[in-house]
């Protein structure tokens, strides 16, 4: 009997300790609202501060929120860290049943789940990416799709990297050879090869979007193999940028500005600006159109931007060549997956 009492006492002490440790500051209360705000919910695989895919989208949402007049007019709810697809699917369904106007599944891995959820909520607009499939072929009319044409920035960054490289070797630290990462990597390789036909581009994939440690080893391996310019995609690249910084190699980023990890390591970044997509979706949903349109981010529509880091000097002739390349992609004379069209 005494044993049981001791055990219960220990358990109570433990639980109360944990609860007090986990206590979070209370969420700020919403201001009183007169008119009904537009409500957006987004489910993201990584966090809103991942310096990559999720952050690029969240920052755009916040920008649109500002334009719309703040949280009382434009409400954002988000679930981050949803690498686990069943969890994400549950969150998507939850948001839809809570009556959000637009529910966004920000990850190509959520597509199958979304195609099963969307028909259950015909009054709710959904969106997902990166993909161009709105499921209209399956008879679903309330889903938007969006994709970044990452190969465009990849091609430009590959051009710059090839021209800047002294060793003639470039290293690409890829996560999984699919979707956005594949587009970026393919564009980078094509750009490098077209800028300098004898350049050597080594490509690795870690098989994971989140394995920071293996990504760091991949960068180390590239540098040991002679690479002085590195690039890569996904939130796990922070490990690789750290290695590049330690070993004096340069880094080319994509999705979101990664300079905080390597202020003197990151040369240039292809930044995604999703605001044009979000703005148009919000406008359409307000007009009663709940889906059926696929968006792309390109240099031409302003969704993709090339951002240099001021702390790393890039020779003017290389910058000029980069601009020329961007112009070529915009006017269609360069195909970012193969090169100049004849």
């Amino acid at each position: 009997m005494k044993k049981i009492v001791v055990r219960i006492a220990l358990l109570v002490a433990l639980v109360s300790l944990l609860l007090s440790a986990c206590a979070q500051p209370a969420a700020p209360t919403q201001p009183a609202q007169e008119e009904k705000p537009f409500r957006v919910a987004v489910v993201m695989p990584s966090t809103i501060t991942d310096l990559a895919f999720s952050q690029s989208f969240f920052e755009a949402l916040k920008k649109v929120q500002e334009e719309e007049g703040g949280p009382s007019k434009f409400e954002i709810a988000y679930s981050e860290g949803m690498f686990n697809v069943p969890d994400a699917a549950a969150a998507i369904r939850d948001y839809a049943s809570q009556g959000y106007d637009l529910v966004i599944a920000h990850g190509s891995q959520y597509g199958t789940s979304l195609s099963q959820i969307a028909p259950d909520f015909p009054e709710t607009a959904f969106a997902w990416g990166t993909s161009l499939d709105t499921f209209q072929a399956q008879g679903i009319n309330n889903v938007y799709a969006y994709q970044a044409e990452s190969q465009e920035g990849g091609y430009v960054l590959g051009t710059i990297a090839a021209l800047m490289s002294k060793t003639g070797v470039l290293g690409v630290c890829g996560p999984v050879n699919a979707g956005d990462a594949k587009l970026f990597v393919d564009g980078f390789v094509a750009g490098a090869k077209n800028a300098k036909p004898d350049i050597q581009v080594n490509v690795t994939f870690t098989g994971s979007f989140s394995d920071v440690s293996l990504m760091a080893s991949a960068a180390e391996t590239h540098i040991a193999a002679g690479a002085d310019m590195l690039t890569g995609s996904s939130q796990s690249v922070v490990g690789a940028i750290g290695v590049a910084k330690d070993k004096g190699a340069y880094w080319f980023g994509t999705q979101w500005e990664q300079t905080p990890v390597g202020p003197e390591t990151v040369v240039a970044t292809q930044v995604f600006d999703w605001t044009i997509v979000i703005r148009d979706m919000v406008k359409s949903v307000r007009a009663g159109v709940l889906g059926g349109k696929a968006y792309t981010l390109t240099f031409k529509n302003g969704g993709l931007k090339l951002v240099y880091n001021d702390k790393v000097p890039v020779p003017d002739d290389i910058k000029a060549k980069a601009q020329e390349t961007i112009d070529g992609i915009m006017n269609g004379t360069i195909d970012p997956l193969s090169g100049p069209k004849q």
Partner: protein
Amino acid sequence: MAELFTLPVLLGIFYSGIRLATPYLYAAIGETFAQRSGVLNLGVDGIMLMGAYTGFYIAMKTENLLLGLLGAAAAGFLMGLLMAVVSVSLQAEQGISGIGLNLFGLGLSTLLFKVTLGGVESIRGFQPIRIPLLGQIPYLGDIFFNHNLLVYGAFLLVPIANFILNKTTFGLKVRAVGQNPQAADTLGVNVTLIRYTTVCLGGILAGIAGASLSLALINLFQENMTSGMGFIAVALVYFGGWRPWGVLGGALLFSFVNALQLWVQVKGINIPSDIAVMMPYILTIIALTFSGRRARQPQALTKPFERGEN
């Protein structure tokens, strides 16, 4: 394939392999102690994350790496203590409580990271120290004697752990408690104390394993940065037959193959990257099936101890 067997590539494989093995060694040696005393702690990954976060945060704020390391060990100790209270005193099912501890560490480290740091930042971590004389040996000096403090520590830990487990009274008690706690108890060994000690020691080492990532190998913290390394560490304990030298063998095999697969990709050898990434895991499974017969699992592993039962 021939391009893989050049000197620079082999040097590269050994060098990265040794670095990759470091966190696994700390975590798996710590887990060996816990399991030899009869406690299966599946929460290693969560403890590593807490160690990685705490170490990074303290090192960043105080600009003192050793304080960070100490903080990581302390965080690991507290997590180990929690596991010991739940699994030894409260006698909860070890597998389940370990998974719970893992999720707790994952959640808490992510929360703290967001509240205190907000985003990814990097620090200057432990730098390589070239050992005098030995470091001058051509090739071998570069591979073995030009690493940071935590890498040397991990490899020194193996003979030390082996000595403690096999040559000291404490080690004898640990093994006795893991083999037959009732018998050890009648001989006056304090089973509860021994298990608390080993689980907390395991926690400390798992905390240091996390710090080896955030302070020495990657030099930053990101949520869930271990991505399951703690579970590989638990597997390595089985792989190594609950012996420190066996764990070393397993950790090196796994890490060398992982380093090799990256070189296979860099050299453009025509294997799909998905297959290359699988290589270390496949090889580990194959090695496990062959080492199964030699394994000497502690008899009382996962069994809570209740005085007077049996």
